[in-house]
């Protein structure tokens, strides 16, 4: 539907470096998706969303059962992007300093000594926080400043995090005993919440073929580097956004507000808190990357619709009665999106 037309015959634009950059960005994004889809088989949409969030400068929370390849995917992504990455395995006894770093006392052979800040794993370009809901709230809060401010303050000194900086956290929807669910304030820091589904039967057979004899994530050649990621993210910010898409994005966020008079009956009845303005910003930024993936330099409603669910699903809180009735956020948002899509 949104296939880019061939510009060679009818293009009236002058060839420029920007055009070349757009073309190169599109090719990079397509190649990255293809690579990750070969490594994590059967999760094409998840791969596309993950790539979108990385280039939109957002953080991702992935929810899925153990053994589906979450860590594998993040590892392959870091390798493909040529980024430094680190992994934090969260446990209840994990301390904030274990993530951000700590000052240690060092003594030199010359008799000198002193405290030196030893950086933690959060100073990597791509941080995988595994089972983030097993960390204590204090440790989870240590991630807040890093994710939002992109800096770590220790002993009154602010340490800037590298760029690009992306946190990809995972959590297990089962085994909730001994876990600390993320507070809403921290959930809002994640641009996307992705749900990793169980792969289909054909995908399982393909998993055996690609991963039985070797670990595919270990042999990934980088497609770009940190600077390339930076350039591509900057190019995504040049993607045009028309008034129609702006209005549509605002309408969608307002449709999740239970206090809004224009909201439908279901949101008003089931939603306790709607999406935040940060959700609106995240949705537009992610839609720009999606437009770039599609070879366009302008955002379409389809781009907004493609990223709406992962942007909104962890920012919309249901009423307790609705949750007890078995209503899921995804089901409710599907109705909201359907109504919104018909109006937009």
């Amino acid at each position, binding site marked *: *539907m*949104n296939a*880019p*037309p*061939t*510009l060679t*015959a*009818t*293009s*009236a*634009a*002058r060839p*420029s470096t*920007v*055009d070349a950059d*757009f073309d190169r960005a599109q090719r990079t994004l397509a190649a990255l998706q293809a690579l990750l889809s070969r490594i994590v088989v059967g999760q094409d949409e998840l791969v596309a969303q993950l790539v979108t969030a990385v280039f939109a400068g957002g953080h991702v929370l992935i929810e899925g059962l153990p053994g589906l390849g979450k860590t594998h995917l993040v590892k392959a992504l870091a390798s493909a992007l040529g980024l430094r990455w680190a992994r934090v395995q969260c446990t209840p006894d994990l301390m904030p300093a274990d993530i951000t770093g700590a000052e240690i006392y060092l003594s030199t052979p010359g008799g000198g000594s002193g405290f030196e800040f030893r950086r933690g794993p959060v100073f990597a370009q791509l941080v995988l926080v595994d089972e983030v809901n097993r960390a204590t709230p204090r440790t989870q809060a240590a991630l807040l400043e890093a994710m939002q401010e992109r800096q770590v303050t220790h002993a009154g000194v602010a340490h800037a995090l590298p760029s690009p900086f992306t946190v990809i956290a995972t959590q297990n929807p089962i085994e909730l005993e001994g876990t600390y669910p993320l507070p809403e304030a921290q959930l809002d820091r994640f641009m996307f919440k992705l749900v990793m589904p169980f792969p289909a039967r054909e995908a399982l057979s393909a998993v055996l073929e690609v991963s039985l004899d070797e670990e595919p994530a270990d042999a990934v050649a980088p497609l770009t580097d940190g600077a390339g990621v930076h350039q591509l993210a900057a190019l995504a910010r*040049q*993607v*045009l*956004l*028309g*008034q*129609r*898409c702006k209005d549509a994005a605002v309408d969608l966020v307002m449709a999740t507000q239970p206090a809004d008079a224009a909201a439908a009956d279901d949101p008003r009845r089931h939603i306790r808190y709607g999406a935040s303005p940060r959700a609106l910003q995240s949705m537009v930024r992610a839609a720009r990357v999606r437009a770039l993936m599609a070879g*366009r*330099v*302008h*955002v*379409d*409603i*389809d781009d907004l619709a493609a990223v709406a669910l992962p942007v909104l699903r962890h920012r919309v809180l249901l009423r307790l009665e609705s949750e007890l009735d078995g209503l899921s956020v995804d089901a409710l948002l599907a109705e909201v999106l359907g109504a919104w899509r018909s109006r937009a």
Partner: protein
Amino acid sequence: MPEVDALIAAVRRQLRRERLRDAARRACWATALLLPLAAALHLVLHALPADGVAAALAIAWALWIGAAMSRRDSDADCARWADRQLDGASAYETLLEQRAAGKATPASARLQAWAAARVPLSLQHLAGLPARPLLARPLATLGVAALLAAALLALPGRTTSRAADATSAQPGAAAQGSEAADRDAASPLAAARPDRSLDDIARAARGLGSSEPPIDEPAAPRSGSGTGPQQDASRVARATQGASTRPGDPAQAAAHAARTVPAPADAAPTPVPATSGLPGTAGTDAGRSADERAVVGASRALPGPLVVQRSPLGPRTADAGALQASDETGEHLDVPPASRSTQAAAPHAPPAAAPPATVESRMTPAETHYVRAWARALGPAR
């Protein structure tokens, strides 16, 4: 951007065609609704001009079509429509916004190229769009409605005699209807109106069938209301004979009953409830007053008939009703004493006030001849 401008122009023409079709569809449905209504009104009122209906419909059609033609879609509206309907992916509207803002960014130049390459595909979609809204069903409905309306308009309208019947059929309008009938009968054209004469015949036949007017008809006054000297004399005699049973004089009533009818031993004299209630006509004064006021040979009938004022009474037995009816003719003396006790238990009717004269009951000589002729004709059949 000649390609995009051409697309915008094509979209504008398409939108105008759609509005015209929509206006025609609405006009068809409205006309299909109004035509049967106009035909029905014509049947009821018999005064609906077909030219007026046609003019009203023409004005409505002109307003609809004119409103559809007068609106001009802006470029932004056309671009938005093209984005939504012609797979434009929001490119056309975004491009127009960039052009209006005067921004010449590399992205906008690339967007212009993208949109120009997209125009042929959008034009192809535009050419493949089905004509909407569909007009087949509204036009078919309009045709059926027009045929139905033409058939109904061809029927004759409702006549005035039917309207008069409808008016006289209402209970409250009976008196006015009879007045109008009398006025019509007095006119020379009355004889030429058979349905009017049938009503007169029916009313006259009811009057000839019984000497006393029915309870529903306007009745003549009971005291001295005869139509001639003989009738007055018989009324005086009956009043004299039945005066003893008037209320207020139970002793005389009992004595009179003992003289004429052998009463049972346990029978108690009971007064007969008065129905006329006029002062001076009860007891022994009844006969005297009748003799004094009655003038032989001259009727004291009022110029117009008196309408019987029907006052609500309690439940009465059939005997009581018969007694009340026979009170007019003095036949109440034949009622056995057992029935009189029942009559005594009946509630006394309040004295009736003199009702106003409302209806002229006299027939003109032409009516009289006409009625008699019909009565003779209907006599053997009855």
